[in-house]
C-alpha cells in the first residue's frame, strides 16, 4: 500500500480545510449564530453513516449470492465504521440540541430512526461475536443485516406518522426551505470530508479483517500439520 500515506495526508488536509470552512467561511446563521456551525459535521456524519450502511447492505446480499469471504469482511467492516459515524452523528446532535432547542433529546422521527439503527447495528456486531463458525456467522449476520436495513424506512415512516407534526427538513423540505449558497458549498465540503474519512477507515478495517482471516487459515494449517501451508500473503498487505 504505497498510496496510503499520500491519501491519509490528503484526507487530513481536507479535514482541516472543512473545519476552517465551517468555522470561518460559512456565513452566520440568523437565529442560532455560532452554534449552528456544528451542523456541517453533524450532517457529514450522517452522510458517512448512510454510505457505510448502504455498503454493508450490498455486501450482505453479495455474500449470500457469491459466498466470497471478502463480502463478509466488507460487511462487518462497513457496519463497524457505520456505527462509529452514527455515534458521531448522535453526539453532535445532542450537543447541538441542548443550546438550539433547549433539550438534549427529542423523539423526533429522524432522531428515533438513527437511534434504533444504532442499536440494530450494535446488535449485529454482538451477534457476530456469539457465533463461532465463520461460514455460519457470515450467513446469519448477513440475513440480520438485511432485515435491519429493511427496517430503517419502516422505523422512519412509523415515527413520521406517529408524531404527525414536526419541523420539516431544511434540505429538500419544500419550496420555502433551503440553504444559503455559501452554506451549501461548505456543507458539501464537510459531507465529502466525512465520507472520505469513513472510507479510509473502512479500507483499513477491511484490511484488518482480511489479515485476521489469513491468520486463522495459517493457524488451522499449522494445527492440522499440513505439509504445504499457504504462502505468507500477509507481508504484501502490510
Amino acid at each position, binding site marked *: 500500500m504505497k498510496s496510503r500515506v499520500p491519501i491519509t495526508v490528503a484526507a487530513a488536509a481536507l479535514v482541516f480545510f472543512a473545519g476552517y470552512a465551517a468555522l470561518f467561511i460559512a456565513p452566520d446563521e440568523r437565529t442560532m449564530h455560532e452554534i449552528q456551525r456544528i451542523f456541517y459535521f453533524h450532517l457529514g456524519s450522517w452522510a458517512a453513516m448512510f454510505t457505510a450502511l448502504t455498503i454493508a447492505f450490498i455486501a450482505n446480499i453479495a455474500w*449470500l449470492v457469491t459466498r466470497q469471504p471478502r463480502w463478509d469482511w466488507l460487511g462487518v467492516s462497513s457496519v463497524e465504521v457505520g456505527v462509529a459515524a452514527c455515534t458521531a452523528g448522535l453526539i453532535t446532535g445532542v450537543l447541538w440540541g441542548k443550546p438550539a432547542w433547549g433539550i438534549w433529546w427529542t423523539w423526533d422521527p429522524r432522531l*428515533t430512526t438513527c437511534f*434504533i439503527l444504532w*442499536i*440494530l447495528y450494535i*446488535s449485529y456486531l*454482538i*451477534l457476530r461475536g*456469539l*457465533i*463461532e*463458525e465463520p461460514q*455460519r456467522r457470515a*450467513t*446469519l449476520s*448477513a*440475513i*440480520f443485516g*438485511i*432485515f*435491519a436495513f*429493511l*427496517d430503517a424506512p*419502516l*422505523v422512519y*415512516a*412509523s*415515527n413520521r*406518522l*406517529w408524531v404527525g407534526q414536526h419541523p420539516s427538513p431544511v434540505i429538500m423540505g419544500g419550496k420555502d426551505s433551503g440553504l444559503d449558497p455559501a452554506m451549501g458549498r461548505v456543507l458539501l465540503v464537510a459531507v465529502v470530508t466525512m465520507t472520505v474519512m469513513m472510507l479510509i477507515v473502512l479500507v483499513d478495517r477491511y484490511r484488518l479483517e482480511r489479515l485476521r482471516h489469513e491468520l486463522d487459515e495459517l493457524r488451522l494449517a499449522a494445527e492440522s500439520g499440513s505439509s504445504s501451508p499457504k504462502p505468507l500473503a500477509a507481508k504484501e498487505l502490510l
Partner: protein
Amino acid sequence: MSTARAAAIVLGKELRLEFRARELLTTTIVFALVIVVLFSFAFDPTAGESRRYGPGLLWIAFLFAGSLMLNPSFAREQSNSTLDALRMAPVSPFAILLGKMLANLIFLCLAEAILVPVFAVLYNISLTSVVAPLALVFVLGTLGLVITGTVFSAVAAHARMRELLLPLLLLPILAPLLIAAVETTASLFAENPALDRAWLAFLAGFDIVFLTASWLLSDFLLEE
C-alpha cells in the same frame, strides 16, 4: 410436495408437540400475566389511565413474552439434530419456516385471546363492542412479531447466549410494529372506538415486507 402442504405438515408436528407437553403455552401466558400485573403497580389502574397506557402495556407484555417464547422454536430442534432431519426432507426451506411461523402465530394468538379479556377485567376497560376489529389488529400485529421472531429464532439458535440474544435482535426491529400496533389498539380502546385504518395498513405492510424477505432468505437461513 407443494409448499402449502409441507408447511401444514410442519405446523401439525409443532402443534402436536406443544399440545402434548403444553409447557410453552402455559409459561408464556403466565409470564405475560406477571408483566400485566406488575404494570398495575407502576401505573395507577383507573379506567381513564388504563385507556391511555393499556395498549402500550399490552403490546410490551406480548413483545416480551413473544421474544422469549420464540426461542425454543428452533433451539429445541438442536438437541436431537432434528433440524437436519427436517432439512433432508424434499421440501423447500420456506415451508419449514412457514409451518413454524404459523404454529407460533397460533400459540401467541391463543395466549392473547386469554390475556386480553383478563386485562380488560383487571384494568376496567369494556371491549365487548370491538371484539372483531380488535382480533384483526392482534392477528396482524402478532403475525409481524412471529415472522421476524421465527427467522431470528433460527439465527439465534446457532449462537451462544441465544436466550439473551433473541430479544436483543428482535425488539429493536419491532419498533415500527410496536408503534403501529399500539396506535391501532388505542383507537379501539378509546371512549368512542373507531379503527385507525392507516395504522392497520401499516401493520399489514410490515407483515408483507418481512414475509417477503423471509421467503427470499429462507434458503440461506436453513442451509447446512
